[in-house]
């Protein structure tokens, strides 16, 4: 429930006709290391308040930080995957500011010596266009604690009369990935923003360094937007030469859809102000998911003086070139080229592959194929009922399937039951329903529900004879060469067999008898 009134906004197309948008994205990623960045406290989500704290992450007097080896390795791997240079020597720095959720009243971060810098990530848009996002830096830092605001009507910070702080999250390793100004995207800026965050998420997931769950806050996005006068084509030299406008920073935009919406909203809002002869205030903005608008946060002022200096309690990080190369060797295949390879292996059309990607089912299908299913069957089963239901629940399919206990092995097993001739398609769908309902493995469900194609040819033949006899008109048509009329007879045979017959065999038998 936002109290602020909405600002004036300009129609998006009109805004883009007059202005050229420039974006900068800062993404914070929580690493899923076993322990915190500077102490041995566990990082598991959802523990009792203040149960995962020690003198170090609680900022007790006298405590000292020690760097998590895995945190540094993850940072370097992320840097390498983003095509960055890796610092030969860098330090941590203290960023000094007071805030109750920050135990030491300084954040241990990196300032002018990031571990990784000068990289890029190529991002594929929906239509296949590739946009190169230049990466400024990726650096290591630590998360803060979480405050619960009590009192006030809304549970928000504003109007609360006191707050309750839990430091379990304080000290969780974070990697902050900062882009250089993203220019030349023109009207596609919001789409590029979303595609970048999406590609980054895929990359980080492939690196297995983070849970990258935006809804849980393990991946958070701040979007900087500024406009400058439009003087030509977005990528033209004269357009690129125009100085950047004043930017605003929209904090905590925490879903892919919101990234796109927030950038789009800020473009329209800036445009309205600038068009009206106003100027943009350099400030942070809060994104409101419910109303789809941003509201004014804190004005960046001179008072914001972080007094950075090298962290004296931590010694410099100087990864050897051997270490860096060894870590480079652990990088997974780039998600984009990996997809190209999988598409070719699986024989999917572009459209089929895009459906799979959009459904977030690439890994599921890969595992299902590895478990023995054909690529076509894997796609058919995952993109059918499970995908439809996940969508309806507003969940991604990986999480949804995991929650319901549906695994790639199950799907492969299901496919096996079909190819072995035990189940037909409609029976297999029933079995899948049973698995999704928690009734057990596909075989167990089929057994429990008594689903099995009747293999007794005598019973099938008897049913065929019975149906031919009962439908002389149709039988005559088939005899006269109207083979498609056999469909009606097959339907009747299946009904006679209570669905437990092999439709192919029934057809074969009917045609043998009538032609």
């Amino acid at each position, binding site marked *: 429930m936002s109290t602020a009134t909405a600002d004036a906004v300009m129609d998006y197309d009109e805004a883009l006709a007059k202005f050229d948008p420039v974006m900068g994205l800062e993404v914070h990623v929580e690493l899923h290391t076993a322990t915190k960045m500077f102490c041995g406290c566990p990082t598991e989500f959802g523990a009792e308040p203040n149960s995962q704290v020690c003198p170090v992450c609680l900022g*007790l007097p*006298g405590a000292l*930080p020690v760097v998590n080896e895995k945190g540094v390795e993850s940072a370097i791997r992320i840097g390498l995957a983003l095509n960055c240079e890796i610092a030969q020597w860098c330090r941590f720095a203290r960023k000094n500011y007071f805030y109750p959720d920050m135990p030491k009243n300084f954040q241990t971060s990196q300032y002018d010596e990031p571990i990784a810098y000068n990289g890029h990530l190529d991002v594929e848009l929906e239509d296949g266009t590739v946009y190169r996002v230049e990466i400024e830096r990726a650096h290591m830092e630590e998360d803060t604690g979480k405050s619960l605001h009590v009192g006030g009507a809304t549970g928000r910070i504003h109007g609360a009369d006191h707050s309750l702080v839990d430091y379990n999250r304080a000290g969780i390793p974070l990697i902050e990935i900062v882009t250089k100004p993203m220019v030349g995207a023109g009207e596609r800026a919001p789409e590029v923003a979303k595609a970048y965050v999406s590609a980054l998420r895929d990359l980080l997931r492939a690196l297995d360094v983070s849970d990258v769950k935006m809804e849980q806050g393990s991946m958070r996005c701040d979007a900087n937007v500024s406009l400058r006068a439009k003087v030509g084509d977005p990528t033209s030299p004269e357009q690129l030469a125009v100085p950047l406008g004043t930017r605003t920073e929209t904090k905590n935009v925490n879903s892919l859809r919101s990234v796109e919406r927030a950038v789009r909203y800020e473009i329209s809002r800036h445009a309205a102000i600038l068009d009206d002869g106003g100027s943009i205030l350099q400030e942070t903005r809060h994104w409101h998911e419910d109303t789809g608008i941003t509201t004014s946060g804190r004005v960046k002022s001179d008072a914001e003086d972080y007094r950075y200096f090298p962290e004296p309690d931590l010694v410099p990080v100087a990864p050897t070139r051997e270490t860096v190369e060894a870590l480079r060797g652990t990088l997974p295949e780039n998600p984009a080229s990996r997809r190209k390879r999988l598409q070719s292996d699986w024989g999917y059309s572009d459209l089929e592959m895009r459906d799979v990607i959009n459904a977030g089912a690439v890994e599921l299908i890969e595992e299902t194929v590895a478990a023995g299913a054909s690529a076509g069957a894997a796609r058919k089963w995952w993109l059918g009922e499970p995908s439809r239901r996940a969508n309806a629940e507003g969940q991604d399919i990986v999480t949804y399937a995991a929650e319901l206990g549906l695994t790639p092995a199950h799907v492969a097993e299901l496919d096996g039951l079909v190819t072995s001739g035990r189940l037909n398609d409609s029976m297999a769908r029933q079995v899948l329903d049973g698995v999704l309902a928690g009734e057990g493995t596909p075989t167990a469900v089929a057994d429990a529900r008594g689903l099995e194609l009747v293999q007794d040819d005598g019973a099938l033949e008897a049913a065929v004879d019975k149906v031919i006899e009962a439908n002389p008109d149709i039988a005559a048509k088939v005899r006269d060469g109207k083979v498609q009329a056999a469909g009606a007879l097959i339907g009747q045979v299946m009904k006679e067999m209570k669905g437990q017959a092999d439709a192919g065999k029934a057809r074969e038998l009917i045609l043998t008898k009538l032609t």
Partner: protein
Amino acid sequence: MPTDLTRATASALADALAAGTVSSVEVTQAHLDRIAAVDGQVHSYLHVDTEGAIGQARAVDERRRAGESLGALAGVPIAVKDVMTTTGLPTTCGSKMLEGWVPPYDATVVTKLREAGLPILGKTNMDEFAMGSSTEHSAYGPSRNPWDLERIPGGSGGGSSSVLASFQAPLATGTDTGGSIRQPAAVTATVGTKPTYGGVSRYGLVALASSLDQAGPCGRTVLDTALLHAVMGGHDPMDSTSIEAPVPPVVEAARNADVKGMRIGVVKELGGEGYQPGVRARFDESVVLLEELGAEVVEVSCPNFDYALAAYYLILPSEASSNLAKFDAMRYGLRVLPDGVDDPSAEQVMAATRDAGFGPEVKRRIILGTYALSSGYYDAYYGSAQKVRALIARDFNNAYEKVDVLVSPTAPTTAFRLGDKLEDPMAMYLNDIATIPANLAGVPGMSIPSGLADEDGLPAGIQILAPATKDERLYSVGAALEAALVDRWGGPILDRAPVLGDTAAVKGA
């Protein structure tokens, strides 16, 4: 072995304990009795743990009876500077900010003391958060110099130095950021070492300036100090700046006490103008003694030491301003609500608490450090100071190419009168002029008594400095010189200190 157990050295006590001629409970009780008798005058302790100390003594006696193999100092009681966290014992750092705070964890040094079986008698007084050279900045009142109760015992470790000089403990711990072990040792005629930076864990030491702080041993003799150094030192995985190497052979060096063939450099820049004549006289005599003992003495110049004090008073406040930000009334310690404000915000409570909880010297340094780090001034102040630091390290390196150790007076003067420099921060800062360079460069230093100044009859100290990780050289030189001086004096120098409890002591000898 003296009949009064409190006059014995730690080494003698350790021998008697090992031989079974005395128990730790007896030794500990003797010191607790002494504390009860004299600490009202000296005010060395902020907290005495009678029950805890006796309990630990009893435990170590039992372990000994059971035939366990114990460390060299097992059963010898110790006083711990109140800057080190101790479970079950308050840790205040001499500040109202932490009044009554009982830490939920032990400093690594304290863990080592406990494991080595040293009963902890209590926590010693100090300048608030170790900022000062006199203990007058303690929020709980100053400690006094046993040589003259109207004078300062040095600082920030004046509680630890006075505890030793008044025989309220045979050993004490200290921390030295710019001289807080060495200068108090000098003005009380005791011994103190600042080890190489990283030689003793800083985990659990409430930080003043992280890149300068170093914990170290305090004793009445060089050997006692070495024995404690060996217990306190060594690598700690909880401290990233801890050196991953065994403790240097300090005890061996103290026992050998040999300076023959050593090259000793007298630092030209430390000892001229501003040094009290009696302090210089005792220093010069010590240097002559070292030559007589077989060392080769040369003069060495460290030109950039002239900038050390200025660099120090930028680096220290800068780091301190950040280290002390955690005292904000949110998680532990004092919480003060501002006067006349309804429903104060966290920010207002922080500001009110930090105003009420910090003393004037702490506030001065925090604000100075905030300034030195602020954008626009960083390069001129903090940045320049860090470059000076590099120059000072270079001076040391150059010097150590020519000599094995350096020497200077520890402090420019003997103990000044309480209150004399309280209103003049710069005058107070000048007391550390000779000790600061070692902290900036991370090299080890020691102070031992050089005698009594002629003009006031008060103790003076000689400082010995060695290259990083060569701490044992301090003990070779210190022990050799100590033996020669004690021989000349005809007994330990503290035998000449006034007897406490006598009215004569108040006047000063």
